[in-house]
Each structure stands twice: as structure tokens, then as C-alpha cells.
């Protein structure tokens, strides 16, 4: 170290005594290490780095020293303050790290609790299936046509070649609007929409007519007096039964799965000729399981009826049967839903129990 200075010996300034300074540093480092919280560290900082701290006081003494001694004393105090500062910074970082860890632990939430504050609602699966079917046909270039549910008898029956003596026109199936003889019914199918479409526009016509229909059936596991149908109608030049089968095949493949095809069986409907029953391959067992519950082991599932639009119907709707031909088909939406989603009881579909719709959410 430096030699004695007869005029002014820093050794004689007690605060600048190296031993004192070392002691101050040691005290500071000990206090910092002992600080167990950020608050305690703050107190230690004030005590050992603040204006009244021994090292700050020592620093102040340097100015009074002769120039020759200033440098050395300055260096000594500076180093001492540096060591205290480092200790503080390190301890600060350590304590902050601990605090952050602790906060994260404290903030833990049990997110396995499934209890949304505002639960999402749901669409009715009949609406969802219906929209899905609409989209399938819209994607093929068809349009969606709709009409009233209280409908005129002529549009619901006569225009469709259902004569007044047709059994389906009796009270057995049809809701008649009062007074008797009003000429109005609750539509028994969406076919009157087909007639309205043909009356309102010229061919080519490619429309799907989905909607609510009514028959005087009692509600049971498989029947409901109010149900939903979708009917297709195509009227264009050169339309054949092969086109009918092509449209039906495309539809079942998109709703029930690739590779599924339909089968047509001869049948009778007044509004079509030739007429056919539509079966669809069982997508559950592929016809391989004699005990299949979906198809009853036959490999085929009955879907609905179809055929070439009867020329009388075309004429009644003002379409020239010499120039145009057309096909039509009708299928049930409830049945499609029950088959596709394994719904076993019609009551669940019609009773409005929110638990039923909630199972399906917003997309089907």
C-alpha cells in the first residue's frame, strides 16, 4: 500500500481505513445474503448502498484528501461499492426469480372443471341434417325452393294427379283446414312446392324442396304427425331415369359415405310414371351382417319414393311434356337423421328437450 503521508494520512481518516471498508463490504454482503424477501433486500440496499451507508460516507471523505491520495482511496471505495452493488443485483435477481415461481404456483387453476359461464347453445339436428342435404344439392348446381305449409288442395293433390277419389285424400291422412270444403289442407308432402316452381318459372328446373309436412299419424317411436321431407325436382330436355339414379347415388354418397349406391324397385305413385322405391346400401354392415340393426340384415335400407314426373303433372303445371321430361324424388329428413345418427325414438326429435339438440352442437 501507500507510504505514510505526513501532511494528511488517509489512514488517519477512519472511514477510509481499508479494514473499515472491508468490514463495511463484508457487513453489506452478509446483510444482502440474509435478506429473505424483496422488501428485506430493499432495506439492505438502503442501509448499505444508500446515502447514509458507511461506503457512501467514506466516498464523501475522498474529496478532502490530498490529490496524491485521492486516486488510491477512490479506487478502494469504488471497488468496495462495486462489490456491494453486484451482491445486490445478484440477490435481487434471485429473489425475483423465487417470487415469480411462487406466483405461478399460487396462480394455478383447476382447468379440469368443465363449467362454462355462458354455455353455447345448439341447433336442432333436423335443421342441421336439412342444411347439410341442401348444401349437397346446392353444390351440384341445384336451388332450394320453399312454399307455404297451409296449402291449397289443388296444389297438394289434383295438380299431382291425386284425384278426389285417391285414398290419400281422405281424412285418414290429411289435415283439412276449416271450414270443410275450404279447399285448403296442411300439405301432406312438399310436392306442391314443385308445382309452384313449375308454374313460376321455365325449365330447366333443378330444385330441392325441403320442409315441414303433416299427416294425421299419432306420435310413436317411428311416426310423427309433423315431420320433414325433402323432395327433388328436375325438369329439362332429355332427362331420363338414369339421371334420377345418378342424382340419388351422388346424394347418398355425400350423406352416407363414398361408394354407397342406391337400388330402384318398381312401385306406384300417382305423380310419377315410371315410379320406383329407393333403397340405399347399408353403410353400417355393407350387407355383411345378418343381424345388422340398421338394415335388418338385408343390406338395403328403404329411403323413399321417386320416378319420372307423370306427364299429367307436367301438363297441369304448364310444362310441355313433348319437349321436357323430368324426375322427382321424396325422402324423409327424420328418417335420414335416425339412420345416420342412430336416433331410436321419434319422441326425442319432436318433444323439444334441449338435451337432445345439445348432443349435436352446431354441425352434424
Amino acid at each position, binding site marked *: 500500500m501507500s507510504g505514510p503521508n505526513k501532511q494528511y494520512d488517509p489512514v488517519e481518516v477512519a472511514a477510509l481505513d481499508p479494514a473499515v471498508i472491508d468490514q463495511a463490504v463484508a457487513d453489506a454482503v452478509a446483510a444482502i445474503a440474509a435478506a429473505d424477501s424483496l422488501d428485506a433486500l430493499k432495506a439492505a440496499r438502503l442501509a448499505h448502498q444508500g446515502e447514509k451507508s458507511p461506503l457512501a460516507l467514506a466516498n464523501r471523505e475522498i474529496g478532502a484528501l490530498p490529490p496524491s491520495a485521492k486516486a488510491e482511496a477512490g479506487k478502494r471505495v469504488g471497488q468496495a461499492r462495486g462489490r456491494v452493488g453486484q451482491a445486490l443485483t445478484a440477490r435481487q435477481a434471485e429473489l425475483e426469480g423465487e417470487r415469480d415461481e411462487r406466483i405461478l404456483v399460487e396462480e394455478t387453476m*383447476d382447468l379440469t*372443471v368443465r363449467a362454462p*359461464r*355462458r*354455455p*353455447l*347453445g*345448439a*341447433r*336442432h339436428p333436423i*335443421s342441421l341434417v336439412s342444411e347439410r342435404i341442401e348444401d349437397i344439392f346446392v353444390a351440384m*348446381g341445384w*336451388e*332450394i325452393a*320453399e312454399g*307455404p305449409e*297451409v296449402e*291449397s288442395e*289443388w296444389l297438394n293433390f*289434383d295438380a299431382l*294427379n*291425386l284425384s*278426389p277419389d285417391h*285414398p290419400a285424400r*281422405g281424412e285418414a291422412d290429411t*289435415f283439412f*283446414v*276449416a271450414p*270443410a270444403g*275450404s*279447399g*285448403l289442407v*296442411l300439405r301432406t308432402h312438399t310436392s306442391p312446392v314443385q308445382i309452384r316452381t313449375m308454374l313460376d318459372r321455365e325449365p*330447366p328446373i*333443378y330444385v330441392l324442396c325441403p320442409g*315441414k309436412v303433416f299427416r*294425421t299419424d*299419432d306420435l310413436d317411436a317411428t311416426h310423427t304427425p309433423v315431420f320433414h321431407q325433402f323432395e327433388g325436382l328436375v325438369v*329439362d330436355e332429355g332427362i*331420363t*331415369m*338414369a*339421371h334420377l339414379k*345418378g*342424382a340419388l*347415388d351422388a346424394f347418398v354418397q355425400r350423406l352416407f359415405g363414398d361408394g354407397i349406391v342406391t337400388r330402384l*324397385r*318398381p312401385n*306406384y305413385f300417382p305423380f310419377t*310414371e*315410371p315410379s320406383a322405391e329407393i333403397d340405399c346400401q347399408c353403410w353400417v354392415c355393407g350387407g355383411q351382417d345378418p343381424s345388422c340393426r340398421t338394415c335388418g340384415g338385408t343390406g338395403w335400407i328403404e329411403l323413399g319414393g321417386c320416378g*319420372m314426373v307423370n306427364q299429367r303433372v307436367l301438363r*297441369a303445371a304448364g310444362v310441355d311434356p313433348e319437349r321436357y321430361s323430368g324426375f322427382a324424388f321424396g325422402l324423409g329428413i327424420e328418417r335420414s337423421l335416425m339412420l345416420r345418427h342412430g336416433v331410436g325414438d321419434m319422441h326425442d326429435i*319432436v318433444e*323439444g*328437450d*334441449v338435451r337432445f*339438440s*345439445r348432443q349435436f352442437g*352446431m354441425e352434424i
Partner: protein
Amino acid sequence: MHAPVSWLRELADVPADATGADIAAALVRVGLEEEGLSGGDIKGPIVVGRVLTVEPEPQKNGKTINWCTVDVGEHGQRVTEGKAQEIVCGAHNFGPGDLVVCVLPGGVLPGGFEISARKTYGHVSNGMICSARELGLGDDHDGIIVLSTLLGAEAAAALTPGDDAIELLGLADEVVEVNVTPDRGYCFSLRGIAREYALSTGGVFRDPAHLDVAAANDDGYAVNVTDGSPIDGVPGCDRYVARIVRGVDTTAATPQWMSKRLTQLGMRPISLAVDVTNYVMMLLGQPLHAFDLSTLSGGVGTRRARPGEKLTTLDDVARALDPQDLLIVDGDDRPLAIAGVMGGESSEVTAATTDVLIEAAHFDPISVARSSRRHKLTTEASKRFERGVDPAVAAAAAQLAVDLLVTHGGGTADPGVTDVDQRSSRGPITFDTTLPTRYVGLDYPQDEVVGTLRAIGCDVTDEGVAEGGVVVAVLPPTWRPDLTDGPDLVEEVARVRGYDQIPSVLPTPRAGHGLTHGQRVRRVVANTLAQQGLVEVLTYPFVAPGLFDALGYAPQDVRRRAESLVNPLSDELPLLRTSVLDTLLEALRRNVARGQRDVAVYELGLVTIGRDEPSKAPVPGIEVKPDDETLARIRAAVPDQPRHVAMAAAGDVERGGPWGPGRKVDASDAVAWALSLGTALGLDLVVTATERAPWHPGRVAGITLQDGTVVGYAGELHPKVTSALDLPARTVAAELDVDVLVAATGVPLQATELSTYPPAHTDVALVVAEDVPAAHVEAALRSGAGDRLESVQLFDIYRGEQVGDGHKSLAYRLTFRAAERTLTTDEVSALRDAAVAAATERTGAVQR
């Protein structure tokens, strides 16, 4: 229609190894839907048994079973060895001495049910006494078969316990059951089904109507066919064959083979005369009627009924006849039968009858259908006439009946044969043989087309060559009245080749328009509500007359004017809803009743606005396009049916949980849902203060377009309504007209450019009278503040001493922003003052 395979084999070539399933498949191919297949899977011992003792034993479950002993001959426990077969039976329609059918252990019943001796009700039951249903002989399971009832006393008398009942009842024979569509009346006969089978397989058909028929002469029974008022110009009867057999023993036993066949067809043998007419009808499809000749006064005829006339039919019902009913009448004009539907009691063949008059006639299908429906009387005869009977088969059918009565009843046929034949001749169909190819999309060569038409019985003659094809004249067979035009014949050609041959070709329309604007709006509406926690439901639109009182509608409220149904499903619900809430509230109630406390539901659907002055919708008939005026009247008569959306909710709209308590739904939620639909559609809806049933008068808001057009209402239901409809207190609801929303949108919305300058916020508190709606204050602020106002937000409502009684203080935050620069403090103050001034002027607001 049932077709026993053994009978079918007599009429068509059926391969020896063909099973019932093969036959059914062949019939399905040509359009007869399979309804069922029975028989064939049965195994003996199934034997005739004589009941010896019957001991009723009441059981704990309230039923009484019978502990029986039965003599089953040489089978099982033998009477000859001092022991009879012991069987437990649950039915009670038999007694000691009756002959019954027993299946003994080891036997197998239809459906593969193997019978073994089993312990039941404290006894060992050694087999079963069978019902008709258990044996696959129809649906009759009221009781077990008593053979004297089923086969007649005489036939039963010839039986011995232990006889094989499988052979006796034809149980081993497979029976195919097919569904006959309304256009194929001829398939309600074995003749028709055999013809279709032959057509499907290309095999031989042996027509049972080809028999020796006595020629008509003038010596027959007097028949006077008249019709004073034909329906649509079609005479009620165009053919009437009458034959007489005298000296018939009508108590003679029906031959076993005939009983067996009738049983297989699900008919119960009754007496010789009845069984013969039924048998001939089943074979040839021609309904016959047998009269006791002694009850007639020397002639029969047809005519329409007169007002007030009555007839007691064979089912013992006295029926008031309608002037449209076609009758068979006695020579003295007395009604004998409703033609083609049912005969009368007075001329019924009985055990005392000796001389029988056989009627084989052809009646107008429409006339029979109307009588059948009018009298709610569907018979085997009416079923056939309605769908069309072959008018050419009448004479053969009468002949066969005569022959059978002579053979089995010991009678003598009168030489007189009456055949009143007034059939109008049928014109041929001009048919282009290329039509099947063009209509089906599969190539059908000319010879195939003509060949198929001939195979189904058509008479095809060349008509000449037309453009691109050959035109032929096709005269359909008499049993096919359904074949009337080209497409009818196309179907024949297509079904005989097989629908399975038709290729699959996707039709390719030109580009479509996609969903309409209205359809897209409805999806937005439905999804917007579901995303806010409401669950979509679908309800029936039927409501009770008392509902409108429960909803508190004023006497003059138009929503009371509901359309009603002539034949509602339930007499309690005869009306059609005029609001969706009419039926949605019931769905809410049901959910609550099922234990859901927090429920929010909605429904989109049509409502029916009752007509002011109902006009009758014309019904101009089929086949012609009505004129424009008639069409306009048809459309005008249909009531307006706007599409509404309704919402209803009760309980908590926000759930309680670890985060804190839940929040009850309130009127403002209903308003917010309603407004959200506007927001979702880019439509700025207006909320107005109003009153409206069924809502709470102080908690309902009107929802309108900017121009004041009403969209709907939202709020809390009136407490009287919730109590009348058994709904939770404070249930909230809304109903909006979706068609109004659709009409108000659809024009592309034009975007406003966004300013990137900072906004300036300023708060104002305005004191207004309690009855001033906040919406009015807000509207005034907006109009006073001008274009630079970006938003107004009501953030507090204060009531208390400082604002005085009957007043409230509304605190608003106004946000201003200019498009081109930052607004100065002075400018913002000036804009705020202008806004407040407008509020003061319009609502009396005073700034606090």
C-alpha cells in the same frame, strides 16, 4: 296378398328347387314388394289333439292358466297307456272335447321356435296348444285354433287325434306375401301373381281362367242393369253375369284342399257357398256374390240408391244409403247389396238355402271406392273393385263357382246363362317404341319393347315408321286398366328388363344461384342464437283455443284470428299457431318440468295469419293447367304464413361456479338477443318503449327498423301469463318477423372508412324523468353530436336523493373522432354541449 308356393306351381313353371325367397325375389324384381314369407321352417310333431280335461289355475300375477290333458293319439303320452299329454295353456276359448292343434316337444314353429317340455306354473308342459298366429296362419291370436270352428264341424268330425296337422293345414307349404300397389289390382289374385312370376322368370304361365265356359243365352235369370246418375259419365256397372245352381247342399263340407288354401291366405273357411266364392276370387281376382234364390222375386238389377233408403248388410249394420251408392236390387226394387262392397242380410245364403244365384259383375272403381269410404267398409271385394278387376274374367269366374258348387254341393247348373255386357271398347295407345330408350336412358331394342308389351298381354300392331323410331298401336290387356299412356308402357318395358339395369348418370345443370338471401339470413339467425346459448327446438304448430286468453290478448287482437282444422289430431288443439311463442312456451315448460332449471330455447318457423274474409280455394281437378284467374284465386286463398323466430328463457343465463354466483336471465337479455340478430345482419335495429301482450307492460321493448317498421318484441312475460301457462316466474321471451329482417337486408352494405386519428372520450350525466326511455336520450345525443360521434355508451343509471323523486340520472360516455385530424379539447367540448342541448330539447334532460 298371400301366394302359397304349391298353388303358384299349378299356374306357372316354378323350378323344383326354387324356395319361397327365390319366388319373392322374382316378384320384387317386377314391382311386387315383399311383405313377408312364412311356412317351410316348421317341423313336427304338430298334430291334432282332443282336449280331455281343462283345469283353470289362478296365478299370483292375476292370470289364470289352464292345466290340460290332451289326447294326441300315438304320440307322446298315450291315452292307450293310461296317460294323456299334459299341457299348460294360457287361452280360454276352448273346452273338453274340442279338437285342437298341438305342437309336441321336438316340434319347431314358424320363426324357428323349437318346442321342448318345460316347467311352467308348477307343471311340466309337454308342448303347446297353438293359435293361428303361432302357426303362421294369419294374425289371429285371440285364442287357440278350435278345428271345428276353423274347418267346419263336418270336416272336423273326420279327424282323429294324432293326425298330422302340418299336412292338414298346409303348414309345410311356404307362403309368399306381397304388397299390391293401387295400379295393380289384378295382382290381388293367384292368377295375377302367377302371371307376374312368369313375366319375371320368362317361364310359362297357365291361365286358370281358360276353362269351358257356358255361352250366354236368353234363358238366364232376368238382370236389369241401369244407372240413373253415373259418376263422371261412367256407368256404375258395365257387366253382370248371373248363373243359377239348384239343389245345392249348402251344409256340405268344404273340401279339405280348399279349406287349406283359404287358411293359407288368411281367410277362415265358413260354409261351402261362401268358401267357393272366396276361393274363386282368390284364384281369379273376380269378387262374386251368392244370393239365396228363394229370397228374390224373379230378377235382379242395379240402380243408384234413393234418399232415405236403408240396407242391413251382412255385418249386421243397418246402413243409411247415399244417392251415390250403386245398389244391387231385387226384381221388386228392394235393395239387396251395396254393389261391389257388401251384400245384405235378407238374401244371404244360409244352411236352409238350396238354390243359389251367383253374381260375377264389373263395377266402376270410383263408385265402389266412394261407397266403401262413405260407409267406412273395406271388404275383399271393394279392395279389388277399387283397384280394377279384369272385366273379361266374369263369365269364367261364374263358371268355376258353378262347377265347384255342383261338384261339392251336389247341385245342378241351370242351362240359362245371363251375361249383360255393356263394356265400352278401349282404344289403343299410339306408342313410339324409342320412348323407353329416351325416357329411361338405357337402350331397349325395338323387338324387346314389342316383345315385353306382348308378354304382359298387350295387343301390339304396326302403325308405321315415324321420325327416328317405329310407332305401334298398343291395346293393353283387359286386366290392366292402369295402362293409359306412353310412360305407363315405358314402365312395363323397364321393369321387365329390371330397374337394376338402369345406369347412373349425374345430371349436370348450368351453374345455380346457391342459397337465396332469405335462406342465408335464416341460417345466420339460427346460428347467432345458438352461439349465444339458446337451443333450437321444433314444435308442432297446434294450439288450444284458450291459449289466447292465457296470453292476455285483447278481444280484438288479430293474433286471436287463427285458422282451425276440420280434423285436428286432438280436439283440444284445433287451431294453428299465430305466433311461434304459442308453442315454444310449452317446450320451455316441458324442459323445466323435466328438471332443467336454466333453459333458453328458440324456434324458427312459419305462423299462419288467419284470413279476414276466407275465400274458398278452387279445386279445378287434374290434368289441365287452370287458367290464370283460377290460379290467382288458388294462391290468394292460401293464408299468409310469415316466418318468425321466437326465443324463451328461464333460470340462469350465466351459470354460477367457482368464479362466483350465476346471473338470472332478465328482460334485457331478451332484448339483447333480438338486437344481436340485427348486428349479425349488419342492421341497426331500434329499441322502442311499448306495451304488448303477452309481455310485462313495464318490461317489454319493441324492436323496429330505422324507418319504424316493426320487427318484433322482446322482454319479460306478464306474471299472469307465466302463472296461467305454468312457466317459471320471470320467464323472458322475444318474437321477431324474420321476413322483415330478410326484406331489410340483401343490398350490399357500403363500408365507412376508418380514421387512424385518436379518439376523444367525454362523459356526461343527464337527469331525466323516470318514464323517459334511455333509447330516446341516446337518439337525441346522437342527433345533436353529429357525424364525429363514434359511439355512445350508457355506463350507469343512478336513482337517489341527488336527482330527486321520479327522476334518474343516465351516465353516458361519448366517443368522438375526426376522419382527418386529431380533435382539440375545445372542439370535443363543443360537440358534447351540442349533444346535451339536443337531449335537453327533446327529452328535458338536465346535465348534472
